[in-house]
């Protein structure tokens, strides 16, 4: 079939026509080899624009189409569809980008027109060699994996499961709930965090379509969109959860007391424990690092086991259902899912490196999470805000932007600290009679009802100082400062240095990526932005998808955000997963690599190079083969093959060389 090429130059209003002489480019194109028709039109992407193409295919027998307009990311699918609707294989279409690559970046009209001609010439030469390709469809497994059991994971899991599809929810610690379970009240409505969270946790625990895998971690992900194979390591809990009733007797018997992570070090727990009262599932685990019996076993000794056998002398029985099992081992289970939602959350910034704030050195300088636990009535102080000496503070300073908006730590704004600091101010007024001072750079109260909350806090009599403290010190300069913590700062509204003596300082720490986010990103083959958070596909128009099809992100693992935004994003991720599931099939791009089995020597260089693990070695034939469903068409294997055995559909050497020659004409 002799190529009959149609070329269409788009004006894009004045976007292209403003700097490129489109009519001249069309005249130029008309003279190129194989071109039967060249036109220019105001908006090629419009209905009438597309009709021009369809009409020429039908009436003039055009069998290759070049549109010179914007970026392929923008409209390649539009024009491919137009070709297809007129009965032409969509891969006979080629796009020349004369907007982003030309008119928008070139000021001189003559030069811009010349460049547009070169780009059109390149596209025309290339399309000459295009081949008809078929994209394929694969079935989608209707199960979904949700990784991380904080509020984002809980929300996403419930939304997917409520539609009647199976969800595997994997959580690293022994209970779901995440950071939200640690919070006291939530801004700006001041609902109790646990009161709104625990019903959702219970729903997850009892949902017929959710399989909850807590105290577990993802070990390996294989497969591709619609067909992932996931290995999950269920860590040994040394307790048979099918028997454990969560009664807590074992916790009373255990003699080993360690610091409780859930209480951020303010409270204690036992070596056999449930992180908090409302834990879901309501089961205990044994912390092998601290358990006397497990440590003893390593040395060949049989010690303690009080949780199991009780105290015989006093007639106190141990676990009555016989759930303690010291022989338990880690177990790896494998599940198959079609979509994955990653909701691994954040890590609270550790302020220790900011020496001038004295965290860890000065008593009564505490982090926001420590305050959160202290003010929580279920927390270690029973909801009383107390100094180290057990008395109530008469004055408290709240320092904003600790670790955030700071060139030395994190440049970004953590988005929640202004609001939670103001919540703290309110709670302090409620729980104590202390004077409260907020030290801020800017108040960011952007959400629904947030500015009103700020005004409310102002009216309650909290004093706001605009200035980031330089130092928190216990070195007094006046008698009034003796025995106090002094906040030294520049009051930028007054324009001078000031010192404010207080009893307690709360550092409103920012949110940062989880310490293992790099490993997790590699595990799921997703990218991270410069700040370390997981990268969405498009910051505005595709905020929950990732560059890996079938893997979605939601919540603070994507960027710091508050609970309403997290819940909205988690629901969006669930909707994306459900849309995929209800479509049932996924189309696989036809521009994939193919290996010529006659040329392949089986050296497997391509396997090592492939970033998508899309190439496998066929032992029987002794050659490598491409899994088209996994192949993204990146072409790394083509460049790396020492035997020239790999070629990439739609990017063949012939096509690329012709394109280059065309550009150089």
């Amino acid at each position, binding site marked *: 079939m002799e190529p009959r090429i149609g070329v269409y130059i788009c004006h894009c209003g004045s976007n292209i026509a403003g700097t490129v002489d489109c009519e001249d480019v069309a005249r130029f194109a008309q003279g190129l080899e194989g071109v039967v028709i060249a036109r220019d039109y105001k908006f090629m992407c419009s209905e009438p624009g597309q009709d021009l193409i369809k009409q020429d295919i039908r009436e003039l027998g055009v069998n290759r189409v070049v549109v010179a307009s914007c970026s392929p990311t923008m409209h390649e699918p539009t024009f491919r569809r137009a070709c297809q609707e007129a009965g032409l294989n969509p891969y006979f279409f080629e796009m020349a980008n004369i907007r982003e690559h030309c008119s928008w970046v070139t000021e001189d009209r003559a030069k811009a027109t010349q460049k547009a001609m070169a780009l059109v010439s390149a596209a025309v030469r290339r399309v000459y060699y295009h081949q008809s390709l078929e994209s394929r469809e694969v079935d989608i497994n209707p199960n979904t994996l949700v990784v991380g059991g904080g509020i984002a994971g809980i929300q996403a899991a419930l939304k997917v499961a409520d539609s009647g599809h199976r969800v595997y929810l994997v959580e690293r610690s022994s209970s779901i709930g995440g950071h939200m379970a640690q919070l006291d009240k939530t801004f700006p409505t001041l609902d109790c965090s646990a009161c709104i969270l625990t019903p959702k946790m219970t729903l997850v625990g009892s949902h017929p379509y959710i399989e909850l895998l807590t105290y577990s971690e993802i070990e390996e992900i294989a497969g591709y969109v619609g067909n992932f194979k996931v290995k999950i390591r269920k860590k040994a809990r040394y307790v048979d959860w099918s028997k454990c009733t969560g009664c807590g007797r074992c916790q009373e018997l255990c003699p080993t007391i360690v610091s409780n992570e859930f209480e951020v070090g303010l409270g204690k727990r036992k070596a056999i424990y449930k992180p908090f009262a409302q834990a879901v599932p309501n089961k205990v685990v044994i912390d092998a690092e601290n358990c006397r019996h497990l440590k003893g076993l390593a040395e060949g000794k049989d010690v303690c086991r009080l949780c199991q056998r009780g105290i015989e002398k006093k007639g106190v029985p141990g676990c009555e259902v016989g759930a303690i099992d010291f022989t338990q081992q880690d177990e790896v289970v494998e599940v198959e899912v079609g979509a994955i939602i990653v909701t691994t959350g954040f890590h609270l910034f550790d302020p220790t490196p900011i020496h*001038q704030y004295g965290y860890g050195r000065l008593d009564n300088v505490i982090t926001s999470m420590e305050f959160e636990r202290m003010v929580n009535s279920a927390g270690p102080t029973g909801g009383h805000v107390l100094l180290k000496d057990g008395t109530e503070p008469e004055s408290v300073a709240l320092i904003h932007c600790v670790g955030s908006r700071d060139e030395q730590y994190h440049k970004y704004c953590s988005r929640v600290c202004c609001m939670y600091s103001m919540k703290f101010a309110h709670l302090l007024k409620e729980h104590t009679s202390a004077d409260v001072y907020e030290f801020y750079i800017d108040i960011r109260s952007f959400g629904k009802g947030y500015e009103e909350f700020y005004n409310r806090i102002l009216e309650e009599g909290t004093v706001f100082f605009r200035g980031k403290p330089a130092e928190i010190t216990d*070195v007094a300069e006046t008698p009034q400062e003796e025995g106090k913590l002094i906040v030294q700062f520049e009051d930028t509204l007054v324009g001078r240095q000031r010192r404010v003596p207080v009893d307690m300082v709360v550092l409103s720490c920012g949110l940062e990526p989880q310490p293992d986010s790099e490993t997790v990103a590699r595990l799921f083959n997703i990218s991270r932005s410069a700040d370390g958070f997981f990268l969405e596909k498009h910051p505005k128009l595709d905020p929950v998808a990732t560059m890996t099809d079938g893997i979605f992100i939601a919540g603070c693992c994507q960027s710091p955000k508050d609970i309403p935004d997290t819940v909205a994003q988690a629901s969006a991720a669930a909707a994306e997963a459900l849309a995929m599931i209800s479509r049932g099939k996924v189309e696989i791009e036809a521009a994939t690599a193919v290996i010529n089995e006659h040329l392949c020597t089986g050296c497997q260089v391509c396997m090592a190079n492939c970033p998508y693990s899309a190439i496998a070695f066929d032992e029987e034939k002794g050659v490598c083969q491409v899994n088209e469903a996994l192949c993204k068409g990146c072409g790394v294997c083509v460049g790396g093959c020492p035997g020239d055995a790999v070629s990439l559909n739609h990017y063949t050497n012939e096509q690329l060389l012709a394109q280059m020659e065309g550009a150089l004409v």
Partner: protein
Amino acid sequence: MKDYAFYPGCSAESTGRGYGLSVQAVAGSLEIQLIELEDWNCCGSTPYGSLNELEAMVVAARNLALAEKTGLDLVTPCSSCYVTLKKANLHLQDHPRLMAMVNEALAVAGLEYHGKVSVRHIVEVLTDDITPGLITEKIKRRLEGLKVAPYYGCQLVRPQYGFDDAELPGSLDSLIECLGAEAVPYPVKARCCGGSLILSEEDLALGLINKLLKSAADNGAHCLATPCPLCQTNLDAYQGKVNSKFKTGYNLPVFFITQLIGLALGLDDKSLGLDTNIVSPRDVLTQLAGVKSGT
């Protein structure tokens, strides 16, 4: 014996004579050879840079060019010289165009700088370069019972150049502990001594010096130790004025850190220039001697 190009700076030969003497005395005992840079000139100092940055850079760069010819690290005991030389060095290394301009000026004196010198402070050398344990090994008289407030001043640790923390430095503390003395908790250890404001804004500077002395006294220090000649002058020479202005009675000798090391190494008072200290260290020395003879 490790060799270094030595840049004493002007203070070590004038207001900080005790520093110049003790640095050389201590270096010999600790297997450090400080070879004075031949024909060195003013470092450029802070005031020059404020008036004409490029000229100040050329003045500093001349020293760097001389040091580069020796192929050795350039070591200075003065915190002010350290910051000035180090800053000039970093700027020149980072900005080739500036380097070209500066080299044009240096060419008149037949010199050229290529950015190869490493500028070090003597405290950094004592902390990082010498064999760990060497000081402890060479000690003849442990300064048992002596409570020292380690005073870093600002220029040794900021702007941040790397070898110690700007907000909570620790290098002097460990040197003091090495000697058998006790480094008392000293929360103002890196706060401002007033610097050259003592000449133009005396009241303000005396207030700052008072804060430093008060915190040392409150924390039970018998004396202070510093690696900066300007800090030493302010705390030592103006202690009397602080006492009369604030009705205080401080009697805190202000040692150069190398003087303290020298004492522990058993070097004699004269070679450490202890006679140049204004607040007399006699009481402290007697107390140490007492410990030694067991009284």
